[in-house]
């Protein structure tokens, strides 16, 4: 065999071997994957079985403790006997699930006594630092132990998700401790290089009123792009605080950075929005200093965003002191300020602003017109009456269309048609219908013609009105009615069809 042939033969033999061994390797890895899957299934099943059993075993003991019928020392003594991981996890879940504002301090004490808090702190901050923090937390010092930044290289590594997820989960657990005890850990976690960890800390501070300055500082650094925690996450934490705590927002409302001022004010708006779902707010609910800033500084702020948010917040005063400010903001040069002012004024306390709100129906911006129509609806009878008046009087096509849109969406038009039967405001109803026909907004009216709920006289009148500008939909309705024996409706429908159908060819898709 010539040497070249031998070389080729050897190469091919090597490739065959390589392919063979690669195939063996892949099959072995596949087999290992399968074994791992089976092992994991088995181990997880065993783990959850034991955890369920432990949960059942300790549920009543933990419940007694949570309800206060079992002393901390006794609970700690009994639960300390537990050694297995599933049982420990079951107890942790039971305690965290049962923790509420009433028992959080006792639960925290127990979590410390059983070593859970120590374990989370060790996972989050390392053994040495955790020991310092726990000591400080036990003494209830409530403040951090001074800045301690690790080396730059180490911070870069710790920033990686691979290393930070475990810490983030530990911080999440620490945030479930009583606010006073948790704060020291969370404050420390805010300096962590891992974004997930800081995020967990920020969200954990949401139930701690003393942490508002910390959160506002996070917000400021995020605005100034020195912090990669999202603004939404920080605001999510801020909005859970209560009205008396708004006092702490005062420095932020007068800060030099307009975006920071805006976000702080927006957080106040969201606090108000949340609380107003439970009870009606009044000017007295706001701290005096904040009230003063809103009325005399934020309403005249150079930033339109701040003025817009100021309108939304000040509207929660629900008294006459807000009226001049809102009136001024309703006429603001900036469309977004007007928009937010209009949106905010839908409260009986601001009925005297109805003329200004009505004026916004003819605003050059559609969002403002839309908001004005909605706000007027929200005033109930006086607002709707005003809306009808403007709808009938205005020569502004856009304003009329916007009102027509809202009347349909909110069911006001249906209610108006129903009123025809009662005969209370027939003249207004008919005028509105004629205006709607003029605008080609006739779908609901056409359906009303087909509906037997409306008295025949009104249906006949509507048919005549609609025949002035017949849409394809109306013609379809007429065709259906002409087939019925519903007299005198069917006869009139037939007659109208005879009159309109020759011209119908030119009416294609007008209704669209």
């Amino acid at each position, binding site marked *: 065999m010539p040497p070249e042939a031998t070389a080729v033969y050897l190469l091919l033999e*090597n490739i065959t071997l390589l*392919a063979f061994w*690669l195939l063996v390797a892949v099959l072995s890895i596949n087999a290992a994957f*399968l074994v791992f899957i089976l092992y994991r*299934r088995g181990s997880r099943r065993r783990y959850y079985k034991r955890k369920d059993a432990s949960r059942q075993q300790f549920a009543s003991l933990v419940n007694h403790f949570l309800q206060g019928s079992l002393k901390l020392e006794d609970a700690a003594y009994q639960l300390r006997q537990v050694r297995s991981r599933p049982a420990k996890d079951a107890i942790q879940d039971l305690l965290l699930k049962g923790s509420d504002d009433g028992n959080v301090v006792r639960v925290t004490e127990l979590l410390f006594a059983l070593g859970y808090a120590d374990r989370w702190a060790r996972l989050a901050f390392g053994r040495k630092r955790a020991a310092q923090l726990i000591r400080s937390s036990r003494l209830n010092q409530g403040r951090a132990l001074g800045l301690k930044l690790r080396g730059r290289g180490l911070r870069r590594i710790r920033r990686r998700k*691979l290393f930070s*997820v475990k810490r983030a989960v530990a911080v999440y657990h620490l945030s479930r401790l009583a606010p006073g005890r948790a704060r020291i850990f969370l404050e420390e976690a805010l300096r962590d290089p891992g974004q997930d960890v800081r995020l967990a800390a920020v969200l954990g501070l949401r139930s701690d009123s003393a942490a508002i300055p910390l959160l506002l500082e996070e917000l400021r650094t995020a605005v100034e792009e020195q912090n990669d925690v999202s603004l939404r996450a920080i605001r999510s934490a801020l909005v859970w605080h209560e009205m008396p705590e708004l006092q702490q927002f005062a420095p932020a409302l007068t800060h030099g950075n307009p975006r920071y001022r805006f976000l702080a004010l927006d957080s106040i708006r969201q606090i108000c929005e949340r609380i107003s779902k439970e009870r009606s707010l009044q000017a007295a609910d706001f701290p005096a200093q904040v009230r003063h800033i809103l009325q005399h500084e934020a309403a005249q702020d150079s930033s339109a965003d701040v003025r817009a948010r100021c309108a939304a917040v000040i509207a929660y005063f629900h008294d006459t002191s807000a009226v001049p400010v809102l009136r001024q903001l309703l006429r603001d040069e900036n469309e977004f300020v007007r928009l937010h002012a209009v949106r905010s004024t839908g409260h009986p306390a601001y009925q005297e602003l109805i003329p200004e709100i009505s004026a916004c129906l003819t605003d050059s911006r559609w969002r403002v017109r839309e908001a004005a129509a909605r706000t007027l609806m929200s005033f109930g009878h006086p607002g709707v009456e005003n809306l009808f008046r403007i709808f009938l009087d205005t020569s502004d096509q856009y304003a009329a269309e916007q009102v027509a849109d809202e009347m349909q969406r909110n069911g006001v038009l249906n209610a108006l048609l129903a009123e025809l039967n009662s005969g209370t405001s027939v003249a207004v109803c008919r005028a509105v219908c004629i205006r709607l026909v003029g605008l080609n*907004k006739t779908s609901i009216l056409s359906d009303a013609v087909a509906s037997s709920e409306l008295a025949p006289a009104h249906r006949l009148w509507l048919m005549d009105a609609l025949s002035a500008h017949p849409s394809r939909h109306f013609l379809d309705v007429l065709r259906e009615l002409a087939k019925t024996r519903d007299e005198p409706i069917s006869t009139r429908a037939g007659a109208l069809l005879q009159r309109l159908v020759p011209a119908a060819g030119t009416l294609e898709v007008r209704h669209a």
Partner: protein
Amino acid sequence: MHEFFLRFLDYTNTVILIYFLAANSVYTVLMFISLYTVSLHAKYAAHKGYTAVLDSPVTPPVALIVPAHNEERVIVQTVLSLLALNYPEKEIIVVDDGSNDSTLDRLIEQFELQRMDLIYREQVKATAPLAFFSSSQRPELIVVSKPNGGKADALNVGMNLARSPYFCTVDADSIIERDALLRLMTPVVQSAVNTVVSGGIVRIVNGCRLEHGEVVEIDLPKRWLERCQVVEYIRTFMFGRPGWNSMGATFITSGAFCLLHRETAVLVGGFRRESVTEDIDLVANLHRFLRDKGWKYNIVFSTDPICWTEAPHSVSMLARQRRRWQLGLMQTVMRDNDMIFNPRFGSLGMFSMPFHAYIEAIGSVVEAAGTILIPFSFFIGAMPLALFLLFVFLAVGYGTLLSVGSVLLHETTLRRYPKLKHVLLLVLYAVIENVGYKQMVTFFRAQGVLRYFFGRRKWEYVVHTGKGATGRVAVAHET
């Protein structure tokens, strides 16, 4: 001539082997990255929960846009499932794209809708709607009727009508898990920069049991074709996309369930009607627009928001679907070919786009050619056994590793299949799909590429039978 032919085979086979080596190398890298990121995400997500997003007043409203064309069998269930979604503030816009069946009537009847003449402002180009339907009892639901203009056109109409800052595209035959929208929104809420797209996972509903628009029992389909697709979906969504996402190079998000920032989507002109895969096209457009503007942005993909969809039941329907996907991919990579190896687009331009253009798009033709030529070369004696074995290893053996690995990753993170029998079957099909199924799909994909070059760029409809999942009405409909 004979010698020329052998030399041609030689060169071609070399190109094919290089292609397989390159493709498998990339897949391996993606596998390791995904193993790392998906496991970590699952670990963290399991602890943090989503109540903070659900409770927060800061969570932005979302418009769910459902384009529907002849979906009478499933549309009511889909809308019911959307109404039941766990999300603080949402609006649902169903766009009936010129259906010939009773899609519209079903909706009107079920939700007692009333025809209205609403204001429609065209911010992105779309066919003008014919009629709007809503109800003061359910103001969050609006149904729009329009002439048939394709999915992209229907989505544009929905965008024009949406009032929320974000919108989510939802296929009419898809079932969204109750918390999925919250999970999709979580990276948006927690991102320090504007997240313009957030994509989730699509899973196959065939074999599952549905009740009131919700998956109540997860099972595997009975037929081999659908089972192979289950494994294929797991591999794609667990390995490919998370890998690219972690590099900040997401190029594909599934339009069946995808959250988008409305204002940015409007700025790029919405969905392009000429594209047969409007979702891929829009993502590429967004990348280009935002890079051009120099704005900071995020396009994310998460593995826990899950949407269930029906997979094709027959080979012919599978062929239509894959040809269309491949054609759409070709349209996008060819239109945006200046992004390939363009450092201005970062890892998207340097890694993701070249991968999608050369390996995923054009590579399918090379792969299909290899599937024919290499065995042919071996049987006529033009290729030694050793090389043939190496090819078999690269084409089949290594594929099993990736597929079984993805099943493993799924099992250790999402764990949606509860029974051990399911997992064993998935592992079995992870091996089986590499022999026959994968090659068949490669041929369909290659057809898609060739259709692009030969100018046959039409949308091919996939007819779903509705028989995929128990609890669905079993009459044919189109998507």
